[in-house]
């Protein structure tokens, strides 16, 4: 590799040393984004303060007190539990459904391409507006979905308004909005898989389930990891759908991190607690994505080695 790039002179006036080139290419992106670290650190500092906007005189460092309070605060543990449940449910269900749809649309045809684009439409509606429409569609009087539910005998299905079904309902809306995202990534992955292994398997008469689990799925894993990673990052930080549908209710059923932090900031103006909550959310996301990226890189290295 090194021998290739030596002797040649660039015709375009300026030269960048080979060593510097990757930095020249990647650093602008980093520099542009790095500015965000300043407000980030401000937020970290805020999280270590007793800081309510409505009591400016009482603002002071209380060192980890905001964090320590979480340990004894049942509402925090509820938030953690609900957030993880929500993220787990949505990601797993969307992954299964997205994979299924991708398999259905795998064959290259004008029809399948068209359908795959049309299925992207839910993704194109801002989640807050989508939630507003779902709220109308699940209204017991005017709602078409409630009407359908009553046709099949679910007369008193209360969707987002009952603690028993609220989680289910917001997960359903999340699935509707975001499954297309996973679907399109996995469809692209499926279509780019090499054909030889499948042809060979077909010739040998290998059972289809065996092919799926032993060939398709392993080869698709890098795509699944990427799709899951991006989805997981967004899902654990879900706000729009839940807030628009239930504002975190009924009771404390859906007080996920962002909803709780939002209420803490914008309504209670308790900046310290809000920042501490979000830092914990950030740490969780950081940890999860670290695991994902490590695995992703490992898989890629292995695949490269085999190729």
């Amino acid at each position, binding site marked *: 590799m090194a021998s290739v790039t030596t002797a040649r002179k660039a015709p375009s006036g300026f030269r960048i040393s080979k060593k510097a080139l990757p930095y020249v290419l990647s650093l602008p992106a980093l520099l542009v984004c790095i500015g965000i670290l300043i407000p980030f650190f401000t937020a970290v500092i805020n999280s270590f303060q007793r800081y*309510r*906007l*409505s*009591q*400016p005189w*009482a603002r002071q460092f209380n060192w980890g007190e905001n964090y320590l*309070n979480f340990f004894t605060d049942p509402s925090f543990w509820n938030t953690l539990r609900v957030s993880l449940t929500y993220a787990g449910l949505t990601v797993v269900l969307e992954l299964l459904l997205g994979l299924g749809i991708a398999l259905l649309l795998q064959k290259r045809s004008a029809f399948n391409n068209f359908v795959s684009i049309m299925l992207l439409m839910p993704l194109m509606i801002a989640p807050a507006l989508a939630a507003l429409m779902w*709220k109308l569609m*699940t*209204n*017991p*009087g*005017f709602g078409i979905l409630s009407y359908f539910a009553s046709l099949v005998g679910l007369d*008193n299905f*209360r*969707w*987002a*308004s*009952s*603690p028993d079904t609220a989680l289910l309902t917001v997960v359903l809306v999340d699935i509707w909005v975001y499954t297309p995202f996973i679907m399109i990534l996995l469809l692209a992955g499926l279509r780019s898989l090499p054909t030889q292994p499948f042809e060979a398997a077909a010739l040998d008469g290998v059972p289809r389930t065996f092919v799926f689990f032993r060939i398709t799925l392993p080869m698709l894993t890098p795509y699944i990891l990427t799709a899951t990673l991006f989805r997981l990052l967004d899902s654990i930080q879900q706000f729009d759908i839940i807030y628009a*549908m*239930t*504002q*975190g*209710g*009924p*009771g*404390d059923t859906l007080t996920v991190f962002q909803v709780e932090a939002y*209420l803490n*900031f*914008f*309504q*209670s*103006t*308790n900046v310290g607690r809000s920042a501490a909550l979000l830092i914990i959310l950030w740490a969780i996301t950081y940890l999860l994505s670290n695991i994902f990226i490590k695995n992703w890189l490992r898989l890629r290295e292995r695949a490269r080695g085999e190729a």
Partner: protein
Amino acid sequence: MHEKEKDLIGAFLRGQVDRRALLKGLGALGMTAGSAGTLFNMMSTQALAADFDWKAHSGKSLKLLLNKHPYADAMIANLQTFKDLTGINVTYDVFPEDVYFDKVTAALSSGSSEYDAFMTGAYMTWTYGPAGWITDLKEWINDPAKTNPNYAWDDFLPGVKNSCAWNGRPGGELGSDDAKQWCIPWAFEQNNITYNREMFDKAGVGVPKNIDDMISVAAKLQKDISGIYGIGLRGSRSWATIHPGFLSGYANFNEKDLAVSADGKLSAAMNTAGSKAYHSKFVQLIQESGPKDWSTYTWYQVGTDLGAGASAMIFDADCLGYFMNGGDNKMAGKLSYAAFAANPEATASTPNIWIWSLAMSNFSKDKDATWYFLQWASGPEHALFGATKMDFVDPVRQSIWKDEVFRNKLNTSYPGFVEMFDASAAGASIKFTPQPLFFDVTTEWAATLQKMVAKEVPVDEGLDQLAESINRQLKEAGLG
């Protein structure tokens, strides 16, 4: 030309003749309503201009932050009058109600000097005031050099005016002598009953007289009329669920949200026996006759259902009922209004109120000019314009409520509204204890109410838990 008429209108504007006498006098002089209106507007601009230098800040510019609301629309429709009167240029940013207060918090917390004045609710000033984001307006109101002689601060309904004044001490009485006027009331909402006349007639029921009556009337309506539910109430996990009907009824039983001790410490007061009894009844009301998906109900759903004929009545803001009686609502013209006292022993209704008000940003670059706008926008001329020509209900000035044109407009299209207002105006004020943890307390209160309605927790136990949690938070914040 029109000299006699001008004299008469002038007398009215100086407060020597009331509106009724004015109209009678003009009628005698053979003026039509239309030409009287034109003349009146012309004269009122002149009257405003008299004895006061409205042009003192001519050439300056102000910027407002407004909520997308009929009140803001009414102001914008009349804004040219202010520009002509003062020579001050005014621009404004309007944001949807859903995100409006987030925008206000974001703008003020960053110390932005972009906006000079903005719309707010009185509850919000319990945060904005101590945070140092807004200005005490007393200094301006009491300065004759800065406030025009026709402003008539005394004309404001006392309960409403006082509800916008607070001394900043957690638990301090609203409207006390040392209170700061954090905002000027613009228009307000009393929480009473708006009901569907047709449905009430059909079910053969009368307007409920107290909370027990409300429970049985709502149940009968729901049973007798197919496809509807008895009573519209808000139920989302938000302060907005607590402050309308719920708190109005609660206050009617003399129950309090918080208790203030002699040394100024706050503690939760929702777990008294009286409070528990009221909660039980209210929960029963929701369970039996409220909307099926009550826990997601906000202002919008309560209104939509009433307007579309999905509910028989609401115990909510009177102006919500007012809006639903017009426009393209299916039930437009079929709604009536009534005052409601939840406590059978109470003599009158004691509605908690929401007040859309105007506040001055502490970061405004020119507070004197901003005050010019505030005194015009909350002044008698604009109040009359808003109430008679636009949907500026409920007006906060007593003179408007005496105005015949306004009363006639209400009596013609909004049956019972004036009586409802007259019956409850005296008892109308903010029933919350002013303190900076207002939103923490009310949000948790709403969440608890949701749990009780869903039968996740019994009323007694739920309220004890709520009180315990609120006491802990008050202590944490140094208030308890």
